[in-house]
């Protein structure tokens, strides 16, 4: 079974029908047939069981039954039987693979009082064993097609009246004919007779012949030939609305369908099929269980496939299956017990719709649930709406919002709009919410609130549209576009800052005046406005935003230029343009602007957007202080700039490095960084030496150093005198620890305790011993987090109070630790 590919869910129950009339059959059933499955329940739902004792049991659709004796003179039991949709029964008995007796009965005339409804008997002596039989009648019941297949590939065919059986012998192939099916067509042939297609299944070939009263018509007889996979069983099925029926053949790998002209679809269900029934959308397949291949009747797997929904709705192993028959909207499974003479009947009963839908929705098979509801005529029911809503929720949860919205729309009138609206309220779902609300309004289930919401959604959508539209228009707007802009003004007032920025941009482009919006706002609001949207607009309209920004600065609407520029950390080009313009217009501006501009230029130089020449020119023309400019050049590894300072301005450089200047610089640093006061004061040259060494590593940043420099030990390291002392202290500490370890190693502890430290009772096992020589009964020991000695923990807690004194006395953290350890261990 290609079980991995099929969806599976149990939607069918197997129910035993107790005290059924079939249990009255007390003999072994040797052949059975029914017409319930024929052409989608067009048959009368009659089932025939032929007993080994020659009795024929006919069960009607209500499971009432009549039994009569076979008229065959052969002593052998009935081997095969076939029943037409018009209740004409044909039976075959065969003795020693030669003498064949064919009986035809008209079951329509069968009553309990009347005798056997015998129509005709034919005795033949073929050379081979019978392997199959099939019969079919025309709708008026006058024409009978009866075929008997033989092991040697021969076919006995009668195609004529019911009352007079006249067989013609045909050699079809050299392999056994294991399946025969007839398809009676309503239209007539040129000769006035009914046309009938005959399909033959011969192990590895499929044939199709067109029949008329005079015999076979050869018409593309071989439909399919496949030696690698063998055919096992066959049936006929006419799909809904189709013109022609399918000849359905079960092969090892799949179930194949054939029309009279060609191959149709196939369904990949693996295994040896012993029986196939197909009624409406349900296909029941009886598969021989591989585990019990040598005992054919002992165990079978019954699989029910919902073909329309491509889902297996029943798959179970059942023992001793005799056959499956189709009843009214159900299937019956007949099994026999181990004695082989008592029979049970089970019905494959579909679960009620509520349970089916529940199971399907639990497994997120919403589409199948909806199709089933539709099939049952419940397409407009509240249950369907509920399933659709759940389906919508599921689709929404997996990101399929469009499809979710489509499902939600179909729930209008049943599901409360609030439930849907609350899910689609997000801006990104505005379009879907609008569609839903529009349908809601049309359906007349909407309230005024819903209509108002639709208006709001429409406005929201327009804002979005207008922003995009205006961005597209840029500055070469035609008069028509200006009109469009004017129409959008109201929307802008509603607070969409994106729109405002577009508006501003356009206005600046048209007349160069400062937008009214800014004239009405203070600096904070203007900065907020830029912070919200300007960065997005910079991507496409940096020049225009630059004009707006410069205009705002020139008009004094923005006074804190550097703060303004911090809004655009990812746009150094824009920032540098702003600053260079500001400097150009006011060379005596704040000195910081020059340094910030240098930083921006150096960044752009690093990104290869400015040349070295450009930077050098800027350095030359700007009133920058050499030492600061050098630091910045060093930061950006702008070596050309540094060289210029070193080579071209030797005098200046030496003056920079003068002791006095360094001291000034350090004092300045101390002023701004009180934390570094100690190291800077003790020995600034050592500190600078350390920093220089550290900064050779590109991964270390200044911020990383701050906590390090604040460490007391670092301060000691920086001071050369303290450094030496520190080394001496550390060596002493190491020596102490070493001697302590030696002492512990060379002094085994003698254990003398005779009682538990806790309960003071006599010693007994199991017990616990600590290195501190305290010992406890295991049961007395209080489990604590650290698994330390209870008594020592108490002592330590007591001694903590003394620790500050110790710490102050030692003045060294290592010494502190050693003292604490000593205290804990030896007291």
């Amino acid at each position, binding site marked *: 079974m*290609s079980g*991995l*590919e*099929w*969806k599976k869910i149990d939607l069918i129950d197997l129910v035993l029908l107790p005290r059924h009339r079939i249990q009255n059959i007390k003999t072994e059933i040797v052949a059975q047939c029914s017409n319930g499955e024929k052409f989608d329940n067009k048959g009368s739902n009659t089932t025939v069981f032929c007993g080994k004792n020659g009795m024929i049991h006919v069960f009607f659709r209500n499971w009432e039954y009549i039994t009569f004796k076979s008229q065959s003179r052969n002593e052998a039991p009935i081997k095969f039987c076939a029943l037409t949709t018009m209740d004409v029964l044909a039976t075959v008995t065969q003795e020693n693979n030669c003498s064949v007796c064919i009986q035809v009965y008209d079951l329509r005339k069968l009553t309990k009082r009347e005798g056997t409804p015998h129509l005709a008997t034919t005795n*033949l002596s073929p050379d081979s064993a019978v392997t199959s039989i099939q019969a079919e009648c025309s709708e008026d019941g006058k024409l009978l097609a009866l075929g008997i297949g033989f092991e040697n590939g021969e*076919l*006995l065919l009668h195609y004529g009246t019911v009352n007079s059986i*006249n*067989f*013609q*012998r*045909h*050699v*079809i192939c050299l392999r056994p004919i294991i399946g025969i099916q007839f398809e009676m067509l309503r239209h007539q042939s*040129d*000769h006035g007779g009914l046309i009938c297609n005959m399909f033959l299944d011969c192990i590895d070939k499929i044939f199709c*012949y067109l029949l008329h009263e*005079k*015999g*076979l*018509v*050869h*018409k*593309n*007889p071989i439909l*399919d030939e*496949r030696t*690698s*996979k063998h055919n096992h069983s066959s049936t006929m099925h006419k799909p809904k609305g189709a013109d022609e029926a399918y000849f359905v053949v079960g092969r090892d*790998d*799949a*179930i194949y*369908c054939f029309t009279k*002209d*060609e*191959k*149709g*679809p*196939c*369904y*990949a269900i693996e295994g040896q099929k012993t029986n196939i029934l197909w009624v409406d959308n349900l296909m029941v397949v009886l598969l021989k269980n591989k585990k019990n291949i040598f005992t054919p009747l002992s165990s079978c797997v019954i699989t029910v496939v919902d073909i329309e929904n*491509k889902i297996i709705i029943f798959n179970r192993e059942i023992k001793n299956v005799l056959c499956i028959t189709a009843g009214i909207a159900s299937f019956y499974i007949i099994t026999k017990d181990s004695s082989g003479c008592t029979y049970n009947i089970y019905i494959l009963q579909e679960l009620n719709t509520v349970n089916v839908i529940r199971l399907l929705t639990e497994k997120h098979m919403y*589409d199948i649930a909806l199709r089933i509801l539709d099939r049952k005529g419940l397409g407009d029911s509240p249950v369907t709406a509920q399933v659709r809503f759940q389906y919508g929720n599921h689709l929404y949860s997996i990101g*399929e919002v469009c*499809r979710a919205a489509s499902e939600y729309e179909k729930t209008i009138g049943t599901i409360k709009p609030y439930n849907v609206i609350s899910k689609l309220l997000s801006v990104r779902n505005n379009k879907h919410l609008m569609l839903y609300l529009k349908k809601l309004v049309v359906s007349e289930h909407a309230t005024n609130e819903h209509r108002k919401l639709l208006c709001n959604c429409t406005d929201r959508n327009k804002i979005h549209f207008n922003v995009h539209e205006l961005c597209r228009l840029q500055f070469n707007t035609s008069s028509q576009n200006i009109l469009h802009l004017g129409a959008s003004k109201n929307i802008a007032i509603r607070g969409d800052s994106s729109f405002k920025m577009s508006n501003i941009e356009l206005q600046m482009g048209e007349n160069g005046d400062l937008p009214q919006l800014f004239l009405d706002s203070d600096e904070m609001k203007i900065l907020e406005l830029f912070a919200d949207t300007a960065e997005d607009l910079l991507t496409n309209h940096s020049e225009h935003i630059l004009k707006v920004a410069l205009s705002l600065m020139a008009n004094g609407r923005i006074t804190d230029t550097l703060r303004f520029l911090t809004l655009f950390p990812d746009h150094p080009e824009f920032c540098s343009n702003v600053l260079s313009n500001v400097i150009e217009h006011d060379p005596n501006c704040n000195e910081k602007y020059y340094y910030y501009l240098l930083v921006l230029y150096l960044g752009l130089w690093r990104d290869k957007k400015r040349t070295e020449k450009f930077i050098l020119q800027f350095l030359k023309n700007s009133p920058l202080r050499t030492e600061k400019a050098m630091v910045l050049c060093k930061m950006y590894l702008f070596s050309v700039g540094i060289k210029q300072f070193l080579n071209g301005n030797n005098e200046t450089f030496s003056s920079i490095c003068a002791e006095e200047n360094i001291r000034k610089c350090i004092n300045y640093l101390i002023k701004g960084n009180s934390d570094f006061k100690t190291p800077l004061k003790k020995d600034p040259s050592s500190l600078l030496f350390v920093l220089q060494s550290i900064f050779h590593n590109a991964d270390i940043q200044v911020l990383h150093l701050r906590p390090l420099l604040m460490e007391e030990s670092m301060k000691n390291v920086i001071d050369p005198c303290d450094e030496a002392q520190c080394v001496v202290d550390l060596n002493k500490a190491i020596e102490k620890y070493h001697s302590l370890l030696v002492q512990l190693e060379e002094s085994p502890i003698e254990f003398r305790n005779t009682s538990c430290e806790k309960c003071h009772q006599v010693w007994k096992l199991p017990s616990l011993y600590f290195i501190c020589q305290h010992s406890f009964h295991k049961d007395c020991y209080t489990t604590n987090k650290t698994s330390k000695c209870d008594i020592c923990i108490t002592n330590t807690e007591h001694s903590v109070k003394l620790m500050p004194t110790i710490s102050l006395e030692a003045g060294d953290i290592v010494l502190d630790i050693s003292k604490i350890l000593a205290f804990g261990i030896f007291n």
Partner: protein
Amino acid sequence: MSYAYLFKYIIIGDTGVGKSCLLLQFTDKRFQPVHDLTIGVEFGARMITIDGKQIKLQIWDTAGQEAFRSITRSYYRGAAGALLVYDITRRETFNHLTTWLEDARQHSNSNMVIMLIGNKSDLDSRREVKKEEGEAFAREHGLVFMETSARTAANVEEAFINTAKEIYEKIQEGVFDINNEANGIKIGPQASPTNPSLPGSGGAAGAANSGCC
């Protein structure tokens, strides 16, 4: 409905490339975003007109998974045209074309017209296979090439109809033996009212020996 010719097609390609969606778009003119996995072979049909003649296209939509390869192979024989489909957003489906092509050439008749289809052209942003690569593959292997989108229906009609035109041209050139239905072509009642392809018509069994018992 009567038709002049019946052409049988097979659609092949890796799983998930959109074979069933192409068929659904062609036969029902709709797109199903979530399509159940094809388990076996599905079947579709549609009438088209070429050169003023009604032509019925019968299409076998096969499963792309390796597990069903033997079933798919049994359908090659009897197909006049094949649509070999790959997904332009999944490189591996393009890489497997050679295997599919070998399979098709081995099990089909030598005259079968093969159309290479790069499906999902609407997902250009996720494209992994350039159109030029598809064209080059088609040129190298003597195939007709087209990029389609089952979602937007772009080029779907053209793909099926152009394949039919190729087959029709081959019939006109006498390349196909139209009396041999194993070639995937059947003459309909419209083209031949007397249906000359039925040699035993009106008589007793042709291939079968018959006799009265």
